[in-house]
């Protein structure tokens, strides 16, 4: 769960989200810039939860309403009056209620942000506001419960001691990789003479099948000259096993049962296949030489070796980077311990949970896997606890990173954002245009790109200051180190921030 452990989206951090309430977003006409007077009373305070009671006087509201009425009165058409000549009294009678609602909303928005500022609270999420009483001519009172961002000191991150695992692919690893490539490109050689088929052999078969109970040949149950590698698991379980030990020219009746998650009609039914083994082939020797390299489109064996080495090096570098980032995150997590807002925690948790459930549902229904039955798409309570921890960690790291980021004035420039968009577009070849359109039309989507960029920049910033020592390890050790951190080794989940709907 490597990526899960990363911090949550930072760019659209909660502070910023709250900042764009409607009242601050729109360009205010002059009269509305006038401040509202209000009284703020703190009702309750427990941990990160604050409950405030805000009162705005009736006069203030009335004044606002009148001002607003005058504003709209300039354009309102009323029979018997020229536009803009309707007396205020009449306007109030006719439109007072509607305007009142509008003014109230603005008043609540405005005063709530002001109240938070006054009390010096940084809300983690959108505050919950409940209007307690309001009537015409009466004061407006409402309560506001808000969860604040925890105040914490960023611990010293300069000179953090980190160990970077560096690994170079050695000859052995390269050779192994080469052998793997070779075996993937293996040719098979016909077995001369009679020999019993064994695991790893390839049989050339003709097969014709029918369901056992009604003797019916379903489409797709017949095949000629089919190359079936024994032990590859390509066919229904049990099929290949029954061919082992048979010789070329043998005719075999194979009895199998379709797995439960096979296609609807056949699932769980018994079937009989008449199989004729026409030929038996065994894997030819995989030779790694210049000819082999040439067959792969390279000049010589040496060229192939360097190519493989380079590729592996890249892979190692990437993993070493990931590992470094992970250790950094771990360290930061260890260093900081503060209460996180429950609201954010829950949100993140649900986020992850939803994702995993979605992925599992996809997994089970998307493929006909054999483990379909025992693979439940429900997340168990134990897993939920684990996820809860992960969510908490992500929220905490997110807060820490964003704090470090803002303190050090780390910003994601538009140019960088542009680059990210281009990179994103390249992931959908042929649809680049659409992707660009999607981002230019959708500011929110752009923000989701900003978040990982911001995170990366902050991480880079810290790493620059950190005291990184290098340690050379073998490739396997590197992989092992990563795996250990992954812990449960469940499916890797992408960060929500990095996810993008297809344009």
């Amino acid at each position, binding site marked *: 769960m490597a990526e899960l452990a990363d911090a949550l989206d930072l760019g659209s951090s909660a502070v910023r989200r709250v900042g764009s309430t409607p009242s601050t977003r729109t360009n205010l006409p002059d009269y509305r810039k006038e401040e509202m007077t209000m009284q703020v009373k703190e009702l309750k305070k427990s941990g990160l939860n604050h409950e405030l009671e805000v009162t705005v006087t009736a006069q203030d509201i009335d004044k606002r309403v009148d001002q607003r009425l005058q504003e709209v009165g300039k354009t309102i058409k009323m029979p*018997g009056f*020229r536009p803009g000549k309707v007396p205020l009294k009449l306007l109030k009678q006719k439109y007072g209620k509607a305007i009142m609602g509008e003014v109230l909303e603005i008043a609540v928005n405005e005063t709530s942000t002001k109240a938070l500022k006054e009390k010096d609270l940084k809300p983690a999420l959108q505050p919950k506001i409940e209007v307690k009483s309001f009537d015409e001519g009466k004061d407006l009172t409402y309560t506001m419960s808000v969860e604040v961002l925890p105040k914490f000191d960023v611990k010293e991150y300069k000179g953090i001691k980190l160990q970077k695992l560096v690994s170079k692919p050695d000859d052995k690893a390269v050779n192994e990789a080469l052998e793997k490539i070779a075996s993937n490109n293996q040719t098979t050689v016909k077995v001369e003479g009679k020999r019993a088929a064994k695991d790893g052999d390839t049989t050339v078969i003709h097969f014709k099948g029918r369901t056992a109970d009604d003797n019916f040949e379903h489409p797709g149950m017949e095949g000629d000259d089919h190359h079936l590698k024994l032990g590859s698991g390509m066919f229904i379980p049990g099929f290949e096993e029954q061919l082992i030990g048979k010789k070329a020219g043998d005719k075999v009746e194979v009895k199998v049962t379709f797995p439960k998650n096979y296609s609807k009609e056949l699932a769980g039914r018994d079937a009989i296949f008449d199989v004729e083994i026409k030929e038996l082939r065994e894997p030819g020797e995989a030779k790694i030489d210049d000819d082999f390299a040439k067959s792969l489109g390279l000049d010589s064996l040496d060229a192939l070796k360097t190519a493989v080495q380079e590729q592996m090096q890249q892979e190692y570098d990437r993993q070493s980077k990931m590992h470094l980032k992970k250790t950094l995150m771990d360290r930061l997590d260890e260093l900081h311990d503060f209460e996180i807002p429950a609201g954010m925690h829950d949100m993140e948790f649900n986020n992850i949970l939803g994702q995993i459930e979605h992925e599992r549902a996809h997994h089970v229904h998307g493929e006909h896997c054999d483990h379909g039955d025992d693979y439940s798409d429900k997340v168990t309570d134990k897993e939920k606890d684990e996820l809860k921890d992960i969510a908490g960690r992500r929220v905490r790291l997110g807060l820490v990173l964003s704090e470090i980021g803002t303190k050090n004035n780390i910003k994601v420039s538009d140019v960088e954002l542009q680059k990210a968009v281009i990179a994103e577009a390249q992931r959908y070849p042929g649809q680049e245009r659409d992707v660009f359109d999607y981002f230019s039309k959708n500011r929110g989507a752009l923000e989701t790109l900003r978040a990982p960029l911001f995170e990366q920049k902050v991480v880079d910033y810290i790493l620059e200051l950190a005291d990184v020592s290098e340690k050379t390890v073998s490739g396997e050790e590197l992989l092992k180190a990563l795996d250990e951190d992954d812990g449960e080794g469940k499916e890797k989940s992408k960060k929500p921030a990095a996810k993008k709907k297809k344009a």
Partner: protein
Amino acid sequence: MAKKAEKTKKTEAAEWMYEIISNPHVTEKGTRGSEHGQVTFKVPMSATKPQIKQAVETLFEVKVKGVNTLIQKGKTKRFKGHKGFRGDVKKAIVTLEQGQTIDQFNA
């Protein structure tokens, strides 16, 4: 004294009164009069000043100082060459005693 008491006694609101005061006449010009305690109504052509006065006094429970009426002649209109007339409208400008007001638009 007895006679005076009888005069101030509330008159029952009758159906014809509602017919007279069926339409308030809310216009820019009409609202101008409100500064002087004047209220404008559209009234039926057949309504007389005394009737209007009585109707206003009983329905709005105010004292009326005087009633002025006018008849606005309907415009001659032509539609596809045919002559036509808009109906005449009688308006009544009711002056209230000092300090009296009518919230006529809620009536």
